[in-house]
C-alpha cells in the first residue's frame, strides 16, 4: 500500500450502507448502461462514435483489470500489456490458422492466457514493490522480443497480416460494424460486472488487506502468494479480452500491442481516472482516448499537450479525476465541520 492510496482511502470513509449495496444494484446499472450503449447506433449514424466505444471497451477492460492489480492489490505491474498483446495474438492466430468458431477461439485464448499468466505470475509475484514492477516489465519486453523474433508464427514486426476471419456464429457477424460494436459493449459490460464482483467479493477484501499490509494479512491466515497469483491471472484474463476486442477492431495483431507502452498507457489511464474508485480507470480511458483523438487532430505536437495534461494531474490535482470528484463530493456532503 502506498502512502498516496492510504491517504486517499482514509479521506473517503465508506459508509456501511455502501458495504451492503447488493450486486443486483450493480447488475441493474450494467443493464441500463448496456441498453443505452445498444440503442446508440439507432440514434446516431456516426461510425466514429461506435469506433470510439469499441476502443473504449478494449482499453477500458485492460485498464480496469490493471487497477485490480494496482489499486486493489498494490501490485504495480509495468508488464500488464503483455496479456493485452497475448489476447490479440492468441485470438488472431487461432482464427487465422484453425478456422474454429469465434466463441471457441475466444475461450481457447483465455485458456492460453491463464496458463501463461500463471507461469509468469508464479515467478513475478514473489517480488515486492518496485522489483515486481521491474520483473513484469522485463517479461513484457521478453515477450515483445519473442514476438519480433518468431517471424514464422507471429509475422514479426509486420504483425498478423491478411485480416482476421470472423465467421458468423449464433447470428452474430463480427465483420458487421454494428454487430462488432454490440459484442464489444457486451464484453465490456460483462467484464466490468465480473471485475466489480471480484472487487466486492470476500476475495476483493483479501486483496485490499494485502495491499494495505501483506505481512499482517499472512498472520490473519491468508496465503498472500496464492492470492496475488490468483488476481494476477484473473486480471490477465480481462486484459486478454481487451486485446481480443482490439484485434477484432483492427483485424490484426501487432507487436506494439505487447510493447511496454501499452502497459504505460494503462498506468497512465489509471492515474488519470483514479485508482480508489472502481470506475476510475473507465473514466480515465474515456478521458485519454478523447484527449488522444482530439489533440492529434489539432496539432502534431501531441506530446507537449499530453505532457502538460499529465503534469496537471500529477502535480496539480495529485490524484485521478474520480478520486478528486469523490473527495470533493464527500467533503461537500459532510460539510466543512467534519
Amino acid at each position: 500500500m502506498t502512502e498516496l492510496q492510504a491517504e486517499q482511502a482514509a479521506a473517503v470513509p465508506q459508509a456501511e450502507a455502501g458495504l451492503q449495496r447488493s450486486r443486483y444494484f450493480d447488475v441493474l446499472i450494467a443493464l441500463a448502461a448496456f441498453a443505452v450503449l445498444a440503442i446508440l447506433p439507432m440514434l446516431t449514424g456516426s461510425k466514429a462514435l461506435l469506433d470510439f466505444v469499441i476502443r473504449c471497451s478494449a482499453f477500458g477492460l485492460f485498464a480496469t483489470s490493471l487497477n485490480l492489480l494496482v489499486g486493489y492489490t498494490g501490485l504495480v505491474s509495468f508488464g500488464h500489456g503483455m496479456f493485452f498483446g497475448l489476447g490479440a495474438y492468441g485470438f488472431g492466430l487461432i482464427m487465422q490458422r484453425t478456422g474454429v468458431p469465434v466463441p471457441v477461439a475466444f475461450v481457447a485464448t483465455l485458456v492460453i492466457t491463464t496458463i501463461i499468466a500463471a507461469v509468469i505470475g508464479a515467478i513475478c509475484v514473489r517480488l515486492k514493490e518496485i522489483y515486481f514492477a521491474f520483473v513484469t516489465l522485463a517479461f513484457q519486453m521478453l515477450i515483445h522480443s519473442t514476438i519480433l523474433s518468431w517471424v514464422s508464427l507471429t509475422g514479426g514486426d509486420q504483425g498478423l497480416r491478411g485480416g482476421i476471419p470472423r465467421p458468423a456464429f449464433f447470428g452474430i457477424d463480427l465483420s458487421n460494424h454494428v454487430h462488432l460494436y454490440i459484442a464489444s459493449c457486451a464484453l465490456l459490460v460483462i467484464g466490468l460486472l465480473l471485475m466489480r464482483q471480484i472487487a466486492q467479493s470476500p476475495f476483493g477484501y483479501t486483496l485490499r488487506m494485502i495491499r494495505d499490509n501483506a505481512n499482517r494479512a499472512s498472520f490473519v491466515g491468508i496465503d498472500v502468494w496464492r492470492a496475488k497469483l490468483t488476481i494476477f491471472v484473473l486480471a490477465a484474463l480481462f486484459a486478454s479480452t481487451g486485446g481480443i476486442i482490439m484485434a477484432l477492431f483492427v483485424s490484426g495483431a501487432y507487436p506494439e500491442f505487447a510493447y511496454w507502452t501499452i502497459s504505460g498507457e494503462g498506468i497512465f489511464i489509471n492515474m488519470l481516472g483514479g485508482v480508489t474508485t472502481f470506475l476510475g480507470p473507465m473514466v480515465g480511458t474515456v478521458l485519454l482516448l478523447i484527449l488522444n483523438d482530439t489533440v492529434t487532430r489539432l496539432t502534431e505536437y501531441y506530446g507537449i499537450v499530453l505532457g502538460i495534461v499529465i503534469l496537471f494531474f500529477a502535480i496539480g490535482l495529485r490524484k485521478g479525476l474520480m478520486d478528486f470528484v469523490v473527495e470533493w463530493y464527500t467533503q461537500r456532503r459532510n460539510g466543512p465541520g467534519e
Partner: protein
Amino acid sequence: MLPLDLDALTGCLASSACLVTQTTSGFIIGMLLFLVAVGLTLIFGVLKVVNFSHGAFYMFGAYFAMTAYQFSGSFALAMLCGAAGTAILGLIFERVFMSRVYGADVLMQLLVCYAFVLIFDDVVRMIWGPEFKSMGMPAAFQVAPLFIAGGVVPPYYLLLIGVALAAAVILGLGLARTRIGKVIRAAAHNPGMVSALGINTGLIYGGVFALGGMLAGLAGALAAPVRSLTPGMGFSVLIESFIVTVIGGMGSILGALIGAILIGMIRSFGSLGFPLFTEGLMYLFMVIVLVSRPTGLFGKEVA
C-alpha cells in the same frame, strides 16, 4: 524458433583473436552504457526516483553539443555545453517539478518524468526539426584505430572509456571520502536527520539531479559524433541503461559498472551466437537476476 548460430559463437570462443576483439568491444559498449546508467543509478540511490526522463537528458546533451560544435568548431566547448546545459536543465527540472512529488506515490513521479519525456521530445522537434542530424567526428579523432592487446580500439573510444572510468572513480571516491559525499549518502539514508542538522536537503537533491542530468548530457555529447541525433533518441538508451542499473542494483555505482560491462558482453557475444535474439537475451538476463536477487547484483537488501 530462436535463430541460433552456435558454431559462430564456439568458433569465436576458440579463436583468441576473435575472443579478444569481441571482449574489447563488449567492454567498449559497456563503458558507453555505464556513462548513461551511472546518472540513473545515482539519482535513484539518493532521491529514490526512477528517472524515466534520463534518456531525454541524454538527448539534450547530444543536441546541445552538436549546436555548440556547429557554431564554435571546438570539440571541448561542445562537450562542456552538453554537460553544463543538461546540468542546468536537471536542476530546474528537479526544483520546479520533481520536488513537488517527493513522498508521493512512485507512480506520480513516473508520470511527471513521462510527461517530460513527451514534452522534451516535442521541444527538440520544434527547435531542431524532425529529421535526424549528425555532429561529425572532430578531425583530431579521424585516425586509424589502435591495436591494444590484440583488440581493436578506435582512439575516440579510448577517450570515452577514459571519461567513463574517471566518472566511476570520481563518483565512487567522492561519495565515499569527501564531506559532500558523506552528506549526500546521509541524505540518501535519512533525509530527516540531514535536514535536522541544518543542511538544505533541497539543495542536495537539486544538486544530485543536476549531477545525474549532467552525466546523461555528457554521455549524449560524447555520443553525438558517432550516433545520429533524432527526437526520441534517448529512448533506446534509457531502456538499456535501465536494464544495466536493475541488474547492477539500483543505487549502486559499482553495480552499474559491472552491469554495464555484463550487458556489453551479452551484446558482443550474443550478436555472434544469437544474432536475432540479442535484445531478448538482455531481458532474459534481467529476469534471471531479478528473480534470484531482486535488488540486483550489488544492490543492498531492503528489509
